């Protein structure tokens, strides 16, 4: 069974109804390490060597965060800047993350209809997530389609629970996936 690392970044988790429900579905799953970045590093002082060790011990990396201004909260960006070191995560000798599965799990306030060329946000979520995709690619990781919960402002608790169990099943299937040799 693959081990899953959920890197969760939310500066105001206590006020997020959607993420509270989602996280409850996955935080205590077997084989899942739920890593609450804002609680661990409230002063933004990231313990890089500990983070690298965590990454090495896991096979699936999930960047779980709300979309703020078409990107992630600042601490996750800080995490990317600090942890994904040259010649460790990328660069000529940077092979530490090779073949690990990587994906974003995101929540957006706006509904899916707004994220298209006709909508007020002009672009799709996949396009907004390009920087993450390319980050994963540069680190030779296997970037997957994001898990998205969109339009959270208008979702009821029941609907959010439905998303929660989907999120949980997604993680189940990632855990049980057979290792495919990268081509």
């Amino acid at each position, binding site marked *: 069974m693959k081990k899953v690392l959920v890197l969760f970044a*939310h*500066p*105001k*988790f206590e006020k997020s*109804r*959607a993420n509270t429900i989602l996280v409850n579905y996955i935080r205590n799953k077997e084989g899942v390490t739920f890593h609450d970045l804002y609680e661990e590093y*409230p002063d933004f002082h990231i313990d890089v060597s500990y983070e690298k060790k965590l990454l090495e011990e896991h096979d699936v990396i999930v960047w779980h965060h*709300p979309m703020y201004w078409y990107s992630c909260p600042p*601490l996750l960006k800080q995490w990317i800047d600090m942890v994904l070191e040259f010649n460790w995560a990328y660069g000529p000798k940077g092979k530490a993350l090779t073949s690990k599965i990587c994906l974003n799990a995101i929540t957006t306030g706006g509904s899916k209809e707004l994220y298209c060329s006709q909508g007020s946000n002009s672009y799709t979520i996949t396009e907004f997530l390009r920087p993450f995709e390319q980050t994963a690619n540069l680190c030779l990781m296997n970037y997957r389609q994001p898990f998205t919960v969109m339009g959270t*402002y208008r979702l009821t608790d029941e609907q959010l629970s439905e998303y929660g169990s989907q999120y949980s099943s997604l993680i189940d299937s990632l855990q049980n996936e057979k290792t495919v040799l990268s081509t």
Partner: protein
Amino acid sequence: MTGSLLFDAIVFLLGAIICVSIAKRLGLSSVLGYLIAGVLIGPYVLGFIGEEGEDILHFAEFGVVVMLFLIGLEIEPKNFWNMRKSIAGMGGLQVAGTMLLSYLFFILIDFDWKVALVISMAVALSSTAIAMQTIDEKGLMETTFGNSAFSILLFQDIIVIFMLGAIPLLSNTEVEAAADSHESTGNLLDGLPMGYQTLAIILSVVLIIGAGQYLIVPMLRRVAKTGVRELLFASALLIVFSISFLMEYVGLSPALGAFLGGVVLSSSEYKHELESNLEPFKNLLLGLFFIAVGASINFVVIAKIPLTIGGILLAIVLIKALILFITGKVFNLKLDQNLLLTFSLAQIGEFAFVLLSFAFQLNILDQEQMDIMLVITALTMSITPIISIINERFILPKIGTKESIKRPMDHIAKSQNVILVGFGHFGSTVGRFLRSHGIEATILDQDSNRVDVLRKMGFEVYYGDATRIDLLEAAGIAKAKILICAIDNPPITQEITKLVKEKYPHVELMIRAQNRNDAYELLNLGFENIYRESLDTSLALAKDVLSKLGFRKYTLIRQVQNFIKYDESSLRRLAMEPKGDDDYLFKVRKELEEQERLLEEDFKRGIVEYDIHWDSESIRKVLKNQQNNAKS
């Protein structure tokens, strides 16, 4: 004219005011000012006071009792117990050594052995009044020197009881008759066998400890409730008087009893009230005492046999200094601390007046010996402050800065950007962090043991009193960018910062403040960079408490930052407001009022809830309202 009480009072006060303020302006200890005032108004110069000087001396000795009570208040019982080794060890060595040498000396100059023994007892004792007043004035109580001096003086207070007990044994005359004529030892226990006496002494010590806990504190509580200020002062005096009375009654030194009483009350909530009440009273009494000592110097005797007196004086000071120096060496004092000790305790103390006059009444001493010894006692008291000054001005600076001279110049030049005053727990943390960035501050500290450690680590350290501009200049203040004042004594902090601001306005001052009131005063003096030691740490603790109660850490960190910002701005706002008269006594109450006011402001602001960032719920609400409006 000299008979009038008012006239005497005017002479004393005027003499004190003029001489002490001149002494202070010259940078000398106030003790010296008082002594000179005494000499001037005494019978041999201006002649304003005559025979009554001696009565005043006895009365003013009570200042020493009050002083020891105050010292006791500063020492918690646990610390006192920790000091037992240095009290017995240093004190024992000092008293035994001095007695032995001076005994031999007086035998050598053909004194009868009994006389020599009594005199050597008197010589072994130093002046608590002079030494402690000087140590206190310079803020040196917390140094190795301060502790050692205090230990020795305390031991002397204890041993004097045995000396007073031993003197009658040397007498040929009837002890009873003599005891009657001596009021201070005429006590209840004279007739009792030794065992009962010891028992009574132990009982009275227990009584003081018990009364402190179960009688005095409840009494003070009741008195404080009345809100009548002078009653607190009256209670403070009552405590000291009663203890002294009890102690004299069982034949113990009142000073020792007062000290014990102080220790017992040191952990009570009235510690500071008692201190602020008795402090001015003590200072005035001690001042009076020093004046009386000055006035009692008998210049007629000196003029009669100047060489004899000069010789004995010199010998005694040398003997005392030598033994003190050896004691310091045995107990591993650093050279500079040892020199301070050596010179500050080299005088004969006020107990000598008691011992000598007691021996005189018992006919052990004759009139001439008595006169000579009294003159010498007063002279040693006057001379040691002068020697101490010579030591501090000319000898110590040479020792204190010896090592920095050996160092290559570039190193010194590099390190002179920042001066750090005070290297205790606060200053050392500052210094370590600066050093970890390659910034080697020039450090000034009062404790030479600390100084020694720092030197070994390669810090540039100057030993000494940072309120002296010459020391700051030696540390390179003229070229410094920043001076960090990290000491825990607000009055000295103010003194240093004011001095630097006046003489070297280009130096940026970064100042440690103890609390809000301290910060107000510094702000009102026009200082900007003020760091309250009680602010950040307490908030860090509060933050962690809330975190353990389930609050999110990142939110807490932001709120702590908000709180600090708010508190700093309210500090600056409140500092501007007039504080009314700065009544020392009611400072505690003022602080409480201040606290109440802050809490009230917090309450009005409500629970901090203005951090609305990343709050999706508020957006949700707006959208919901829009929806509802659209529907209706």
